[in-house]
C-alpha cells in the first residue's frame, strides 16, 4: 500500500545550491532592516532617542513604537486573540523584545545604526518562575490590558472530574508525579525573516517570508493593516525548516512592511540566531502534575492532570480557538481508561510569547510525555514491566472507532500489534536479561518504552479555527491539453517533499506519471485558500484534497472519454489508468488522449464544459490518529552522568504511506528531536529574565554523534476517513520519542530509587538526580 519510493523532485535544485530561500530574494533598490531589542526582561521605557541613528549616512528610516502608534500599528493581534507589541511603546516585557527598527542601505550599516539608538529604561521586577506568576505580590506584566490586576491568562478543563475523583477515591493503587516539559525552541536552521515590497503605484504589497501558512498571513495582514486583501501577495519561497516556528506573524514582518511603505523601497529583514532563539516562537513550558489510579494487577482506571502553562508576555499560541491548551486533553493517550480529567491554567511571565510550536501537534507532545511518564511511574510502583503494563491497558483493536474519556474519536488502530513488533525488533526480553547482568556488575543500562497516539489533520472546521478562519484547505487541478497537470495547494512544504508526494497522489489517481504533475504552492496569488502546514495536517488535509480534486477530474474525464467512444459514461470503467468500455480494454483512453479531446472540437454532452480541471475544498470529517511504539536503549555513566543512546527502535503506523522513503525521513528527523529535547535542548532563564540559551553555543541541538542509527518498523492501519487511508506523520516521532528516552534513562537509574527526572538529562542533571539533589532545569542552575 504505497505510491512508491520516488526520489524527490525538490532535490534537483537543493543539491545544486539553487534553492530560493527568503534571504536569497534580492530586489532592485532593496533596503535592509535591523531590530533593536530590549536587554531587560521587564522595564519601563522612559525615552527613545533615535536621532544619531537617523543621522547615519546609510540609514533611510528609524521606526520606533511611537511611530507605529501614530499609524495604529504599535500593537497587533496574536493568534490567540490577545495583543502583542510590534515595537514597544510603554514597557518591554521580555528580554529581546522589539524596540526599534532601522532601515539602511546595507545590512552592516543597519546593524551599526542600532548602536546609535539611545533607549532609557527603568528596570522593573520580572516574573520568571511560572510557579510564582500568580503570587499576590507578583508584578503585573500586562498592565496595558484594561483592568488587569494579575498574570492569569486562562483556566480550562476537560474530561469528567467527578468520575475521575470517584475512581481515585476507591483505587487500590495511586501514583502522582510532578514533571516539567521545559521551554524549547524549534530552531530551524533558517531563521525567520521577510522581504516586503509595497508598490505605491499599484497599491500592491508583496511579502516574501518563510511562512508555513501563507494564506492565513495574507488575511491577517489585511485585517491588521487594513490593506485590501486582493492587494496583498504573500510568497513563501523555499523554507529552511519550520517545525511550527514559522506559523505565526512576528513583529519583524510587520516592521519590514511598514519600512517598505515608509521608504517606498523593498525592505529585507532577517533575524539572526540570537533573535530567533530569544523572541520568536518557543514551545512547551508546561509544569504538570499527573496522577493515575489503578488496580493492584495493573489496570489503569483513571488519570488526572493539573497543568501550569507558561505563555510568556503575550498569549500568542497558535491553536484552535476552542482549545487554549491545544489538544492536550488527548492525554489519556493510547490506553482504555474509564475516566480522565485535566485542568490547565495559563499565566503570563516575562518571557517571549508563542507557546505552541515545534512539531507538537497542538500540545500532544506534552500530553504523550505526561501519560507515558506516568505509566512508567505506575510500573515502578507496581514492580511490573513497563511494556507488559502497557499491553495490559492499550486500547484493543476491536474497540475502534474508540471514544476517549475526553471526547476524542480515535479512527483506527491495532496498538498491541505495534508494541509487540517494536519489542520483537528490539529483542526486548534479551535486552532485559542483558540489563540484569549489567546491573549485577554495577553498570547502568536503561530500556525505555513509549507508546503514542497522535491526533492530526485539523479540522473539521466546525471545531477548529484560528481567528475565525476554519481549518479546511483548497486544491485546484488543471490537466493541460497534452496530459500534463498542475496541482495548486494551500499548504506549504518546509522539507516534507510536497512537490513529490502530492504529484504522486495526482499521478496515481489520473493514471499519469508523477513527473507529469507540477505542484504549485507557497504563493497566495497562485493557490487556493487554506490554513497551511502545521499539526501534521498536509497529508491528512491537503493530501486528501489532492486525491478528491483528482477524482473530480477523473469523473470529468469519464464524460469526455464517453463522448470520444460514443458510449454512455455509465458503460465505462477505470482500469489500469484508462477509461475503457466495460469488458473491452482495447477501447481504453489515456488521460493524455482525453485531455487533448477535452480541449478539442469534440462535442460534449449538454451542460458539460470543456477542458479538464476541477477545484475542491476539503473539510476533514475527523482528525486522523497515527500511532506508534518506541523503544530506546541507553547506557549511563554513573561517574559522570553522561547518557549514551545505544539503540532506538521506532514502529510507526501512519496509515497508508504514500512515499515510504519520505515517511521514514520524517520519522528519522523527529527521533533526533526526541534525543535533543530529552538530553540537551532547553531555554532556561535567570532570575532577572536573562535568556541562558540565546545562541547555538548554549541552545544545544543534537549532532550526528548523539543520534544512533534509527531502527524502524511499520504497521499499516488505514484511516477510514481519509480518501487514500493516509494519516499524517510529520510530528509523530517528535511527539513519541522524548518519553522513550527519558523512560530509558530513568530505568537506568532505577537502582538509585529514581522514578522521575526532568528534561533535559544533561550530565550535570543526571548526576544530581543520582545523588538525590536535582535542580530546576528551567531556571539558572543554583
Amino acid at each position, binding site marked *: 500500500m504505497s505510491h512508491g519510493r520516488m*526520489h*524527490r523532485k*525538490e*532535490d*534537483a*535544485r*537543493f*543539491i*545544486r*545550491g*539553487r*534553492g*530560493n*530561500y527568503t*534571504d*536569497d530574494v*534580492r530586489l532592485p533598490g532593496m533596503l535592509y532592516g535591523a531590530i533593536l531589542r530590549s536587554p531587560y526582561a521587564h522595564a519601563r521605557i522612559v525615552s527613545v532617542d533615535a536621532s544619531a541613528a537617523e543621522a547615519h549616512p546609510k540609514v533611510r528610516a528609524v521606526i520606533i513604537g511611537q511611530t507605529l502608534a501614530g499609524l495604529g500599528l504599535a500593537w497587533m493581534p496574536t493568534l490567540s486573540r490577545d495583543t502583542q507589541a510590534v515595537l514597544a511603546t510603554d514597557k518591554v516585557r521580555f528580554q529581546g523584545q522589539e524596540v526599534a527598527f532601522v532601515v539602511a542601505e546595507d*545590512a*552592516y550599516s543597519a546593524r551599526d545604526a542600532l548602536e546609535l539608538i539611545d533607549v532609557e529604561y527603568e528596570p522593573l521586577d520580572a516574573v520568571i518562575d511560572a510557579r510564582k506568576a500568580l503570587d499576590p505580590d507578583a508584578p503585573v506584566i500586562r498592565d496595558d490590558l484594561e483592568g488587569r490586576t494579575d498574570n492569569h491568562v486562562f483556566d480550562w478543563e476537560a474530561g469528567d472530574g467527578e468520575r475521575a475523583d470517584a475512581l481515585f477515591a476507591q483505587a487500590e493503587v495511586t501514583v502522582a508525579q510532578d514533571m516539567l516539559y521545559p521551554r524549547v525552541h*524549534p*530552531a*530551524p*536552521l*533558517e*531563521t525567520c525573516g521577510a522581504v516586503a515590497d509595497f508598490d505605491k503605484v499599484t497599491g500592491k504589497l508583496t511579502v516574501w517570508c518563510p511562512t508555513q501558512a501563507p494564506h492565513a498571513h495574507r488575511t491577517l495582514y489585511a485585517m491588521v493593516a487594513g490593506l485590501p486583501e486582493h492587494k496583498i501577495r504573500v510568497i513563501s519561497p*523555499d*523554507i*529552511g*525548516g519550520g*517545525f511550527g516556528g514559522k506559523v505565526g506573524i512576528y513583529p519583524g514582518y510587520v516592521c519590514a512592511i511598514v519600512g517598505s511603505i515608509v521608504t517606498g523601497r523593498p525592505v529585507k529583514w532577517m533575524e*539572526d*540566531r*540570537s533573535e530567533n532563539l530569544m523572541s520568536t516562537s518557543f514551545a512547551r513550558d508546561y509544569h504538570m502534575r499527573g496522577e493515575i489510579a489503578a488496580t493492584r494487577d495493573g489496570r489503569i482506571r483513571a488519570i488526572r492532570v493539573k497543568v501550569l502553562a507558561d505563555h510568556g508576555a503575550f498569549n500568542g499560541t497558535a491553536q484552535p480557538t476552542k482549545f487554549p491548551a491545544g489538544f492536550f486533553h488527548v492525554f489519556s493517550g493510547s490506553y482504555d481508561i474509564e475516566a480522565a480529567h485535566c485542568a490547565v491554567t495559563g499565566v503570563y511571565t516575562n518571557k517571549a510569547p508563542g507557546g505552541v510550536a515545534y512539531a507538537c501537534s497542538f500540545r500532544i507532545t506534552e500530553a504523550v510525555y505526561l501519560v507515558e511518564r506516568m505509566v512508567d511511574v505506575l510500573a515502578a510502583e507496581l514492580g511490573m514491566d513497563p511494556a507488559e503494563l502497557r499491553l495490559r491497558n492499550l486500547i484493543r483493536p476491536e474497540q475502534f472507532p474508540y471514544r476517549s474519556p475526553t471526547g476524542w474519536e480515535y479512527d483506527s488502530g491495532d496498538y498491541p500489534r505495534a508494541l509487540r513488533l517494536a519489542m520483537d525488533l528490539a529483542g526486548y526480553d534479551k535486552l532485559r536479561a542483558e540489563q540484569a547482568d549489567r546491573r549485577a556488575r554495577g553498570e547502568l543500562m536503561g530500556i525505555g518504552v513509549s507508546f503514542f497516539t497522535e491526533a492530526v489533520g485539523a479540522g473539521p472546521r466546525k471545531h477548529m479555527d484560528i481567528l475565525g478562519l476554519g481549518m479546511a484547505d483548497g486544491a485546484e487541478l488543471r490537466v493541460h491539453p497534452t496530459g500534463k497537470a498542475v496541482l495548486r495547494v494551500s499548504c506549504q512544504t*518546509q*522539507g*516534507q*517533499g510536497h512537490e513529490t508526494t502530492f504529484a504522486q497522489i495526482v499521478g496515481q489517481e489520473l493514471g499519469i506519471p508523477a513527473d507529469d504533475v507540477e505542484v504549485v504552492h507557497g504563493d497566495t496569488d497562485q493557490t487556493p485558500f487554506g490554513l497551511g502546514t502545521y499539526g501534521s495536517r498536509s497529508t491528512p488535509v491537503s493530501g486528501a484534497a489532492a486525491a478528491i480534486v483528482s477524482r473530480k477530474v477523473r469523473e470529468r474525464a469519464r464524460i469526455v472519454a464517453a463522448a470520444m467512444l460514443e458510449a454512455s459514461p455509465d458503460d465505462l470503467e477505470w482500469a489500469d489508468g484508462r477509461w475503457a468500455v466495460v469488458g473491452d480494454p482495447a477501447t481504453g483512453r489515456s488521460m493524455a488522449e482525453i485531455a487533448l479531446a477535452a480541449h478539442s472540437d469534440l462535442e460534449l454532452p449538454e451542460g458539460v464544459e470543456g477542458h479538464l480541471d476541477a477545484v475542491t475544498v476539503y473539510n476533514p470529517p475527523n482528525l486522523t490518529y497515527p500511532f506508534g511504539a518506541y523503544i530506546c536503549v541507553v547506557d549511563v555513566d554513573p561517574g559522570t552522568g553522561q547518557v549514551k543512546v545505544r539503540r532506538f527502535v521506532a514502529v510507526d503506523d501512519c496509515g497508508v504511506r504514500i512515499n515510504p*522513503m*519520505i515517511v*521514514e*525521513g*520524517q*520519522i*528519522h*528527523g*523527529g*527521533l*533526533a*528531536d526526541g534525543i535533543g529535547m530529552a538530553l540537551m535542548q532547553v531555554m532556561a532563564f535567570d532570575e532577572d529574565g536573562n535568556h541562558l540559551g540565546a*545562541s*547555538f*553555543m548554549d541552545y544545544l*541541538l543534537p*549532532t*550526528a*554523534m548523539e*543520534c544512533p*542509527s*534509527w531502527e524502524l518498523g511499520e504497521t499499516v492501519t488505514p484511516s477510514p476517513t481519509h480518501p487514500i487511508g493516509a494519516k499524517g506523520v510529520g510530528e509523530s516521532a517528535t511527539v513519541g520519542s522524548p518519553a522513550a528516552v527519558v523512560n530509558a534513562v530513568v530505568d537506568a537509574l532505577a537502582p538509585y530509587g529514581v522514578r522521575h527526572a526532568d528534561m533535559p538529562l544533561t550530565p550535570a542533571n543526571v548526576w544530581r538526580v543520582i545523588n538525590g539533589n536535582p535542580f530546576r532545569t528551567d531556571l539558572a542552575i543554583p
Partner: protein
Amino acid sequence: MRITVSVNGQPHTRDVEPRLLLVHFLRDELGLTGTHWGCDTSNCGVCTVQLDGVPVKSCTVLAVMADGHEVTTVEGLERDGELDAVQKGFVECHGLQCGFCTPGMLLTARRLLDTVPDPDEGQIREAISGQLCRCTGYENIVRSIRWAAAAEGEARR
C-alpha cells in the same frame, strides 16, 4: 580593500570592507546563494565551503582572508553537467529535506571522500559532527555519503 578570490575556478576581484564575512562575499557580492548561514557562532555549519580544498565555516572567515585563495561552493560541485557522486548520493538516499544544511554537508562529504575514500559510519558521523541538520536525524545523510563512496569505489574498479 581590493581582493581577488578564486571561486569554483573563476577569479573574482572586488573592493570590500575588511569586516565583510566570506559568506556574505559569496552570497551578496557574487550572488552565489547556495551557501547559507544559520547562526552567529560557528556552530551550525550550514555556511561550510571549501577553502583551498578544506571545509571551513564561511561565517567565521573574513573575505579578505580568502584573498588569493581558492573557494569551492556547492555551485562548483557539478562539473560539465555531471553531478558529483555526493550530490547523486543525497538524491538516491533522501539525504535532504528542507535543503538548508545540504550545501555544507555536500562539501564536507566531498572532502571526506577525497581523504578517506571508503569511510565507515563512525567516520562519517564524526566528519559531519560540526554541522547541524534539523530534518533528517542524520541517518540518510550517512547513507548518502556511503552511497557516494560505494559509487566512486565502483567507478575506480
